[in-house]
């Protein structure tokens, strides 16, 4: 069980992903864009952040680079369906600036949960 910050502007996708994560017994914090996520991160430090890339107010790319500076230990998973660019373009970029894993939408549920588990295991083993 981990605390996961879920950043996604599309309500439908966010609610669905939140439910997927909660079913896997994770605690989920929701944010609808980069700015809200940054505000939430002032008071709390989740284990993992799952973020969309194309969002209003503050994009996932800006958010990832800020989070990597302020919370270097936080694991980040980037997801994107692509906009004007190929999603792989955004995802490669997000990995290059600090995301541990990236997924193209639609993310396979099992793959997402497995990635979260692996990242948590890595965190725990490096902590010991």
């Amino acid at each position, binding site marked *: 069980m981990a605390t996961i910050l879920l950043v996604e502007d*599309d309500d*439908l*996708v966010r*609610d*669905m*992903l939140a*439910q*997927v994560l909660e*079913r896997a017994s994770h605690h989920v914090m929701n944010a609808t864009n980069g700015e809200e996520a940054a505000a939430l991160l002032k008071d709390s430090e989740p284990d993992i952040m799952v973020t969309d890339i*194309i969002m209003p107010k503050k994009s996932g790319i800006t958010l990832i680079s800020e989070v990597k500076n302020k919370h270097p230990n936080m694991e980040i998973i980037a997801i994107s*369906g*692509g*906009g*004007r*660019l*190929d999603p792989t373009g955004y995802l490669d970029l997000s990995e290059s600036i600090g995301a541990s894993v990236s997924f193209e*939408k*639609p*993310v396979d*549920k099992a793959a997402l949960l497995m990635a979260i588990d692996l990242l948590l295991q890595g965190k725990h083993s490096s902590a010991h």
Partner: protein
Amino acid sequence: MDDQLKLPEQYSNNYKKTKKPWLPYLIAIIGSAISLVIWYFLIYNYKSELLVNSFYISLPWIILISGVSIACIFAIYFRLVQLIHERSLTLKQMDADFKKEIIERMNAEEGKQKLEISLLQGQKLQAIGTLAGGIAHDFNNILYAIIGYTEMAQEDVMKESLVYKNLGKVLDAAKRGQDLVARILAFGRRHIHHEFKPIHLNTIIENILALLKPTIPASVIIDLQGSKEEYIILGDQTQLHQVIVNIINNAVDAMEDEGIVTMRITRLLANNTFLSQFPDLIANNYYKIDIHDTGRGMDQTTLERIFEPFFTTKEVGKGTGLGLSTVHAILKEHHGAITVESQLGHGTTFTLLLPEYQPDKLPNKPKEQTDGHHITSGR
């Protein structure tokens, strides 16, 4: 008024072209000279007794005057005939020139119209591409939510239950939607830069056909004609693959699984008149690939809309209507062109044009390829 009757300058020069302009003058001179000789002969050889008769006195003079007059009349007659002949030649020439000019103007007008149509088509495709990309992105999210919730709902019911099976159908339908979205997104992203490399056109086509063969009915024959010479273009192998596969699949569909697809590759030099139909192509040598099928052909209405996105003649669910618009976009990206000719009952011919690879000429040659050593042969 007079000005209107005058011939244009280039035509008035034609008068000088008459073959024997001196002939009328020669006739006048010779005629006059003969009359003069007769006059001289008569004046100096007359016997003196004859000079008493007034008729004999005036005869040499009558002969001289009438001889000179007749010579002059003949000369004037010949000159007039010459002038009429010249004028009719000039008029014929003018007539031919005017006809030529009318044809040239008509061709220019037609070229202009073609360019306008292709510009309009290009803008339309671009606008629809952008719109489609935007819609597809949102639609993808909706489908993603449907899939996610459906999968979760499936977890909550017994695998043997009817609810589980029906949710499976929902998943299938949503996944089909996703497939469609992926194609629309791919279409919307056409303008994104692809890595172009020098590639062997004929080898790539042979490879594509080899890959396609198992997927097409045995009753369809694909006949590839072309030189064994290596034709090199600058392009993206995957995209070219998409182009050929799309056109061949359309051909196979149009032939209702039976017939012959003929592919012919020819090299056109930059000054080839065929290329003048495509005013927006850059001056270069081109490879022309004709793909002809013996299918049912198309009517004019279908032909006009064939490269439009979402236009399809196939049954609902069988075609997305994106295939040929993507092909059109890919050809454009390769600085090439595509045209189609078809007649109901007489099959269809797609003609693709791709510029020959000339390292110094093409605008988007990739940096790492400037020495042109690495050439992909396709696989």
